[in-house]
């Protein structure tokens, strides 16, 4: 399996590994994938409630190098974006940036799902007034 330089870079120097406090109202958490499939991503965003801008993002991933790179890249892209801009991130953008081969496209799809799940969780929290 040959990995692109960018995938290797994200693997060796992952950006934003870690966790944000789940109970924090400004934090949205997305947990996607399944251990039985060999891919689980947890992606979190902290949103500034006044500006609607994502000011921090963290990830943890159980998966191959491409999965780790996709989620690491996602956290890089999310910082500084509004929720609407974040929802525009498509898996094909990740595929292109990381030069993912066809067999690893599902990693980018999971990363897009994780972004959407994190944002949906944040929005749900605002609605519930948690």
């Amino acid at each position, binding site marked *: 399996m040959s990995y692109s330089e960018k995938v*290797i870079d994200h693997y060796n120097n992952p950006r934003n590994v870690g966790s944000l406090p789940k109970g924090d109202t400004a934090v949205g958490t997305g947990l996607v994938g399944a251990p*039985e499939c*060999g891919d689980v991503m947890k992606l979190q965003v902290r949103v500034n409630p006044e500006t609607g801008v994502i000011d921090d993002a963290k990830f943890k991933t159980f998966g191959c190098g491409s999965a780790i790179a996709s989620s690491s890249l996602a956290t890089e892209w999310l910082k500084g974006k509004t929720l609407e801009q974040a929802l525009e991130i498509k898996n094909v953008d990740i595929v292109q940036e990381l030069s993912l081969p066809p*067999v690893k496209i599902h990693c980018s799809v999971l990363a897009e799902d994780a972004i959407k799940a994190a944002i949906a969780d944040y929005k749900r929290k605002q609605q519930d007034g948690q």
Partner: protein
Amino acid sequence: MTGLRNRLSDGLRRELDEIYINGSVEHRLPGNLNVSFAYVEGESLLMGINDIAVSSGSACTSATLEPSYVLKALGTSDELAHSSIRFGLGRFNTEEEVDFVVQKVSAVVKRLREMSPLYELAKEHEEVKIRG
């Protein structure tokens, strides 16, 4: 060679918890060791040890993404099958090489566990157990 294999196995068990030997410990090829490292995916582990020649899953499925049907037949769960690495020792391997592998593999597993949501969940809720 069985001595080297046992040195590898004992070394890994000393450095890491929650690792599982797949298949029978007694009835196997003397130079073969297939280990699952819980909470860490096999391919990501391979990327970190690219100066060691190993494969993930079992020999026949090392080139694919499917969890190994051999490991499944041995009773390994799908999740642990995705976390497995196969070590093949030969008559030219040395004790120094085995010790190097123990150190390198342990370091990479520890680093990847810090990045793993499954490890985090397991630590948070000790009642979450992986059934092998």
